């Protein structure tokens, strides 16, 4: 007898893979992404396609140049590209979107070692770098369903910056200005719920994040529903504050992370110079994640406190 496989136990594995996890995230993002394309037309679709394609190409090139195993098939670059695109305005020049993908994939993700090793969410860093670099292009918004009208394609403000005459129902269905993937709150909630039901993400982070914003808004006498449905809160809470690599591991850690994100978002939205604070809040909490992880370790069953050794 020859060629018996000798390996450590267990000798069975669950049928789950990283690729399948990422595929679920992509599926969950689709309702909001499609809604964005319906609202903003073919331009929006072009931005999404550009971001996904450039992210995948940058990932493949990086792995090749660094002589590392090719990881494009795990689909994480597709998720990053899609998320980045959904965080941009449909009016963004495509070459800027490519630079955003470069920052996200090459600088934030691959230079730190690739999937699971990055300290900050690649799509968020990409978006923030673009916001500082191309401020006016990043805040030029298309009117919803502009392609059905003849003139007045460009509008100046998102609902968060100016709340003139926007109804809750418009926010829910995406009939408002904003980033491609942010406008349809309903689509984002459906996707988030899907990820929670399929146990891809824990409900703790989005609940803590959205809950904190809601409570703080209510306490200060703001319009709670309006704050929840507008801007990047839904996409941030469900899809970016739940990124595995850059958020805490345990439920206790996720709770702290979510509350922190909510507080920072509330403070920036209400007292900061920027109308939107979701990206900054998640980035800041990303930086705290290693510390949160250290402070929120689980207590193993029957563990006893370490006895200090006498010296």
């Amino acid at each position, binding site marked *: *007898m020859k*060629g*018996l*496989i*000798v*390996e*450590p*136990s*267990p*000798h*069975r*594995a*669950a049928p*789950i*893979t*990283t690729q*399948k*996890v990422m595929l679920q995230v992509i599926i969950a993002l689709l309702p909001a992404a499609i809604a964005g394309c319906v609202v903003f037309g073919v331009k929006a679709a072009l931005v999404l396609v550009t971001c996904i394609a450039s992210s995948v190409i940058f990932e493949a090139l990086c792995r090749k140049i660094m002589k590392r195993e090719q*990881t494009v098939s*795990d689909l*994480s670059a597709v998720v990053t590209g899609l998320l980045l695109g959904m965080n941009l305005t449909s009016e963004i020049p495509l070459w800027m979107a490519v630079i955003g993908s470069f920052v996200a994939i090459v600088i934030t993700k691959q230079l730190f070692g*690739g*999937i*699971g*090793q990055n300290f900050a969410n690649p799509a968020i860093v990409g978006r923030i770098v673009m916001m500082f670099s191309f401020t006016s292009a990043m805040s030029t918004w298309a009117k919803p369903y502009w392609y059905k009208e003849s003139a007045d394609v460009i509008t100046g403000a998102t609902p968060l910056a100016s709340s003139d005459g926007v109804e809750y129902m418009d926010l829910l269905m995406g009939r408002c200005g904003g980033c491609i993937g942010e406008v349809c709150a309903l689509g984002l909630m459906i996707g988030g719920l899907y990820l929670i039901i399929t146990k891809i993400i824990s409900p703790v982070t989005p609940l803590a994040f959205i809950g904190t914003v809601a409570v703080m808004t209510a306490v200060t006498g703001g319009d709670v529903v309006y704050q929840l449905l507008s801007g990047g809160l839904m996409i941030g809470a469900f899809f970016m504050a739940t990124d*595995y*690599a850059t958020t805490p*591991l*345990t439920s206790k850690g996720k709770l702290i992370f979510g509350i922190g994100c909510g507080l920072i978002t509330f403070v920036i939205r209400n007292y900061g110079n920027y109308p939107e604070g979701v990206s900054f809040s998640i980035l800041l909490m990303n930086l705290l994640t290693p510390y949160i*992880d250290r402070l929120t*370790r*689980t*207590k*193993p*069953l*029957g*563990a*006893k406190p*370490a006895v200090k050794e006498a010296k």
Partner: protein
Amino acid sequence: MKTLRGIHVSHDKATQDCETAAFPLPEKVIIPMSQHMGAPCKALVKKGDTVTVGQKIGDTDAFMSAPIHSSVSGEVVSVEDFLNSNGSVCQAVHIKTDGAQTVCPDIKAPEISDKQSLIAAVRESGLSGLGGAGFPTHIKLNYDAVKTPIDTLVINAAECEPHITSDYRQLIEEPTAVIEGILMVQKYLGIPHCKLCIEANKPKAIELMKEKTASIESIDIVTLPQQYPQGAEKVIVYSATGRIIGEGELPSNQGVMVMNVSTAAFIKKYADTGMPLVSKRITLDGSAMTKNQGNYIVPIGTPIQNLLDYTAAENPQMVLYGGPMMGITLYDTMQPVLKNTNAILAFKEVKLPKTTDCIRCGTCIRTCPLNLMPVSIEAAYKAKDVDALKELKVMLCMNCGCCTYACPAHRNLAETNQLAKGLIPRPAPKK
């Protein structure tokens, strides 16, 4: 019922309705002198000696050990070094069978009248835990009743590993031996309560045992949830009694003794006949086996190749001692059946999953029955951070394999935990 976390694996108990049959006597047996935890035995026979069934052929003065007996009658052809599956080397007695199965004339039922005579008899029987870990049973029975009084005997019939049905057949075929074995242990050790724990996927066994113990007040039948690893010692104690075995503690520290169901039944059978542990009920199954899958009483020392031939195994790529979750892979099919073997599984067309980079999803933490953090342990192991490994309590890991099983990146987390244990210096033995 409060229970610890775990995973759901397919049960694959295809052999559960296969009545136990006697396995044909092999031409030759290989009996290693180390078959369980503790010190190896020294061979008492030499080349050319004639041996009989039940004759003691290995023993030691070491406390933590149990003697070894011949499973066949025949002639010793050699005593040579043998490489165990755990990597250690010990002696092994090779015996050519004569087919007569002459029983050793010294064999007679032992006289058991109190705790000490029970412990002495169990030591002489060569019994070690039949569930898999193989802890010498006489040491477990010889606990200090003053320092650590035991009030509950937990009988482990969870059989949570896929494929294996030998303990199930023990319950179905010899329920009386199980119950009388339990009552013997309870009587001589003075343990008032017994909880016989069976996983919910064995409704027939649960019903049968409930019926047979209806008039016995001291024995409760506990239905365990269908979740791996219900049969792990700490998990079954928690499920059955709600007690937590602390770090560095034995079940006796919590007033509990855990015993496998076949171990209990063997004690009764030995008390009746005096025939030591020379054969085992074993499940033969797996995708490579093409016929005769089922449960067999197999002489200890039977080469696994004989079992594979009998079941017409086709191109087996992986052969296991035990189940797919915690079983040990064989490096050679001439390795023998041991005292703690409960199944031999052979699989063909094995596809090993590809390991990819950790995505920090935390699934390993959410599946660990003991609430450990394999993802953090792996990071600390890579950094050789001994202090972090101590804080993360890696020494508690029981290697159940839930983390590796559930990992989407298919990282060998359970293996890493065992490697990480090696980095932690052990306390110097007390003088």
